[in-house]
């Protein structure tokens, strides 16, 4: 079947564009970049059609990566129903975003560099999704992290962009440390990292009601997920990651990479099912993140920041879903989120493109007249994320909230309120950008077809994607919970509609209301506007002490004193001291030397005489 062909096309695209892209003409670069992803997408479609009806997981073994004692790690790819969804999302949305990026990046420098990184990202993401063991998954996991770093820091001449790239990378290191510890514990307990074998081994394990090895493993893996998927407490990198070009935000920081944590948990569901404590932690963290990020989203003025916090919040929803055991609901939301959030970002990118780089919502307004296609497609995405009936977000959010309603009613209520908040801030951004009077200084213009085309496709998917019922498709792996209860759906829809109505009232009907609400909230508004000062708190309790420790202990103490003064200079002084002693012999006077030779000869004769005499 040759599953390896799926990731190999983007890898070739990366190599071609990365190595000789500088000398290629723009159309050639475009064809290589988009063509490789299109080839992958086509091959995914072909493979999936061949593998229908997916009665069992299909695995291909390529070679043994390493064998050490009982641990045998192979480079194997597996396609099952879960992988199929991820493959379609990654290559499908990836293809649309690549196409869009052709238009968006047209006037930017480093065109070939951008697309080679983007192709490399596709390669690693596909490896992550296809892998049939945790270690190869981790290779992809780290690879997408690398590409995220490269692309966030794409405008590396700007200090804030390279800072944001560093932040993303370093915060992810913390999560990945947990992930690796989790993998090591898995190796110790199960002697394998292969998903199939792990599932078999875990099936016999008892459900852990207290904290034990399985709980530790799943929690550590979840630490990795909080880093990659931007959950509390490691979410701080994602909003800053918006320093990258907008297609990157759409592809990596909304649609695909950040959902890797959700995918990983769904993939390891057999383990999470045995650890109710870890599941509860996942659900609570997801819910907290959803609320927390949504409230920050209300106050932001940078259009990309609004959507970034929205992404954090929606990822929280997905973790709420998988944490409640509704894995298929989580993955469903992952897919619909990929559609509408990619669309939101691409639409924002289109606005930014049309306004020559303006990102501040306060300098937009009334853009409906100037860029109608962007406006209507963004409206579709906004409706979908708000859970408007029969859009894609409606179905997936409903799946998650229904699960919450059955298992943990308080989580449902918090989730439903968050849905209302989500609808409010998304429509706040939408109304501020497209309604009212134009408040900017540039001359807005609609984006070219190469950009609006993907917008329209994604709009169709955002509106209709909910009818691709993921829970039904995944039913063989994750059994459907038959709930016919309409209450949670009705409640969450009401909350969503209220959010939209409130946004309409405050930002279209009576814009003065927004200002008076802001002053009424007073210090609370300042707190939320400054993102609860989380960055400052982290800086004060983690970064600054670490810097001080580095400066005074590691730099001044260890490096300056021990290494520089002690080892390096000390060695130098030692050699110089001995040298000074030996210099005394080098008088330059031949008679002096001759005397030493004489003395030496006499000494040797004397010693030989002694030795000879002893014999």
């Amino acid at each position, binding site marked *: 079947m040759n599953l390896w062909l799926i990731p190999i096309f983007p890898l070739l695209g990366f190599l071609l564009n990365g190595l000789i892209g500088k000398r290629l003409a723009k159309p050639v670069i475009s064809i290589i970049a988009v063509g490789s992803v299109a080839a992958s997408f086509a091959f995914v479609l072909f493979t999936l059609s061949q593998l229908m009806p997916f009665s069992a997981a299909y695995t291909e073994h390529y070679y043994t990566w390493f064998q050490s004692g009982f641990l045998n790690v192979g480079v194997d790819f597996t396609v099952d129903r879960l992988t199929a969804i991820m493959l379609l999302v990654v290559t499908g949305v990836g293809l649309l975003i690549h196409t869009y990026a052709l238009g968006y990046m047209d006037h930017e420098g480093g065109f070939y560099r951008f697309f080679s990184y983007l192709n490399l990202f596709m390669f690693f993401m596909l490896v992550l999704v296809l892998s049939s063991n945790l270690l190869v998954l981790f290779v992809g996991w780290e690879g997408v992290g690398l590409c995220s770093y490269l692309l966030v820091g794409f405008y590396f001449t700007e200090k804030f962009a390279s800072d944001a790239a560093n932040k993303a990378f370093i915060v992810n290191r913390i999560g990945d440390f947990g992930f690796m510890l989790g993998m090591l514990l898995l190796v110790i307990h199960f002697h394998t990292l292969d998903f199939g074998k792990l599932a078999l081994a875990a099936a016999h394990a008892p459900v852990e009601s207290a904290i034990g090895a399985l709980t530790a493993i799943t929690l550590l893996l979840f630490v990795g997920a909080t880093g990659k998927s931007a959950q509390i407490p490691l979410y701080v990198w994602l909003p800053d990651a918006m320093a990258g070009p907008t297609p990157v935000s759409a592809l990596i920081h909304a649609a695909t990479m950040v959902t890797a944590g959700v995918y990983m948990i769904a993939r390891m569901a057999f383990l999470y099912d045995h650890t109710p404590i870890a599941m509860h932690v996942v659900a609570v963290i997801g819910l907290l993140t959803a609320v927390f990020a949504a409230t920050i989203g209300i106050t932001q003025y940078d259009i990309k920041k609004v959507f970034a916090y929205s992404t954090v919040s929606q990822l929280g929803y997905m973790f709420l879903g998988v944490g409640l055991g509704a894995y298929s609901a989580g993955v469903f939301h992952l897919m619909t989120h990929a559609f509408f959030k990619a669309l939101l970002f691409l639409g924002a990118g289109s606005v930014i493109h049309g306004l020559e780089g303006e990102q501040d919502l306060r300098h937009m307004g009334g853009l409906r007249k100037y860029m109608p296609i962007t406006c209507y497609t963004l409206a579709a995405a906004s409706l979908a994320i708000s859970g408007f009936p029969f859009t894609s977000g409606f179905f997936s959010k409903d799946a998650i909230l229904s699960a919450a309603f059955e298992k943990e009613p308080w989580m449902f209520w918090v989730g439903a309120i968050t849905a209302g908040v989500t609808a409010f801030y998304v429509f706040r951004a939408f109304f501020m950008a497209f309604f009212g009077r134009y408040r900017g200084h540039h001359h807005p213009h609609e984006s070219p077809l190469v950009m609006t085309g993907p917008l329209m496709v994604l709009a169709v998917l955002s509106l209709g994607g909910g009818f691709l019922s993921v829970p039904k498709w995944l039913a063989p792996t994750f059994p459907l919970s038959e709930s016919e209860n309409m209450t949670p759906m009705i409640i969450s829809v009401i909350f969503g509609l209220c959010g939209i109505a409130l946004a309409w009232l405050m930002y279209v009907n009576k814009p003065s209301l927004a200002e008076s609400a802001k002053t009424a909230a007073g210090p609370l508004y300042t707190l939320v506007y400054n993102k609860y000062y989380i960055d400052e708190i982290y800086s004060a309790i983690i970064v600054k002490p670490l810097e001080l420790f580095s400066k005074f202990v590691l730099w001044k103490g260890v490096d300056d004193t021990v290494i520089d003064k002690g080892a390096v200079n000390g060695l130098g002084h030692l050699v110089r001291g001995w040298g000074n002693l030996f210099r005394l012999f*080098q*008088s*330059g*006077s*031949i*008679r002096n030397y*001759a*005397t030493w030779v*004489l003395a030496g000869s006499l000494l040797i004769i004397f010693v030989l005489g002694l030795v000879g005499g002893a014999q």
Partner: protein
Amino acid sequence: MHGVPISWYLALSVVLFGLGVAGFVYRKSVITVFMSIELMLNAVNLSFIAFSYQLQRIDGHIYTFFVMVVAAAEAAVGLAIILTIFKNRGTLQIDEVDSLKN
């Protein structure tokens, strides 16, 4: 064996060698130092020949010829060096030729 005993030859050799060393170390003129070297070489030659005669072996003679050849070559080179030093520095005082220092 009749005639002069070997110890006399060796004693003479030691005396000559000691004179050579003393001259080498204590004299200041390069020419004298040079001559002292020749004296040491010939002192060694003398002991070689003495042993060669005593042991009735030819090796000592061969070494002596080698030493003489080397001494001749050395004399040629050494005198050339001395001439050059005198030409460049206008002196043959060995203490004044100490530019190797520092």
